[in-house]
């Protein structure tokens, strides 16, 4: 063991610890983000609507190009239709995990799944 530790220079320690920290942050963010709670819909940088994932519904968001339709069903959300030329956010399909987002850049609409833990409101204080 000691023979192997001697193979490391200070820079190696730094890189190895930095790499381990990166892995830990990824795990925390992706695996331990808690259950998905609600959907945050933004339009042009402002919050357009916050909707729970429990109730199935459709949200229609007007943007500069037209209407973006968002569907919430079965605790998942997706962009059903969008006037953007490349349809990237539509092709992304269903999103269901906290931190996942579908972004329709041309129409300035974004849909983000938010977990329970990251939400702080005035009641917490």
């Amino acid at each position, binding site marked *: 063991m000691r023979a192997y530790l001697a193979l490391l220079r200070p820079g*190696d320690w730094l890189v190895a610890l930095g790499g381990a920290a990166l892995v830990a942050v990824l795990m925390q963010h992706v695996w331990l983000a808690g259950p998905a709670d609600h959907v945050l819909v933004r339009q042009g940088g402002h919050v357009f609507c916050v909707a729970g994932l429990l109730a199935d519904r459709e949200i229609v968001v007007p943007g500069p190009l037209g209407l973006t339709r968002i569907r919430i069903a079965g605790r998942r959300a997706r962009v059903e239709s969008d006037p953007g030329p490349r349809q990237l956010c539509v092709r992304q399909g269903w999103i269901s995990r906290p931190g996942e987002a579908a972004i329709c850049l041309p129409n300035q609409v974004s849909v983000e799944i938010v977990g329970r833990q990251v939400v702080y409101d005035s009641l917490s204080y």
Partner: protein
Amino acid sequence: MTVSVIETTGEDHRIARLAALAISLMWIDAALPSPVPGIKPGLANIVTLVVLRRHGLVSALWVAALRVVAGSMLLGRFLTPGFVLSAAGAMASLLVLWLLSWLPRGWLASVGLSIPAAFAHMAAQLLLVGIWFMPGLNLWPLVPGFALFAWLGGLVNGLVAERLLRNT
């Protein structure tokens, strides 16, 4: 009739020898049972690292390129998705190694080079799968697991490479 003779230098022989070594390690890698597709120790990278530190980036580039092309031919997966992934991973990790070579000498030994290279390898492959092979599929849940194994593989390969460099 003119007979063309290909002159080979000592360096060509050295690169061929090292590439052959890398290919045999790649074979061992391919033979190891893997719990999840994509998680491999990447033993051939030990050779790339040793060549990089002993003979420089150009030699490492040659050895890696020969290994990816000839190795995949021998494994019967030349120009398959597996080959494209392996080539992308090799290119990304060499790019990172090239960037790290600008750091002052003596800061990093093999481990400090190997871990970032392993991360780059993994990131390039996941990006390729996410953008080209399976677009629309959510790969995020897999990322921490792949990152953990890339870190582990980078650490172990770096230690082995450093040991080889000091003992031979």
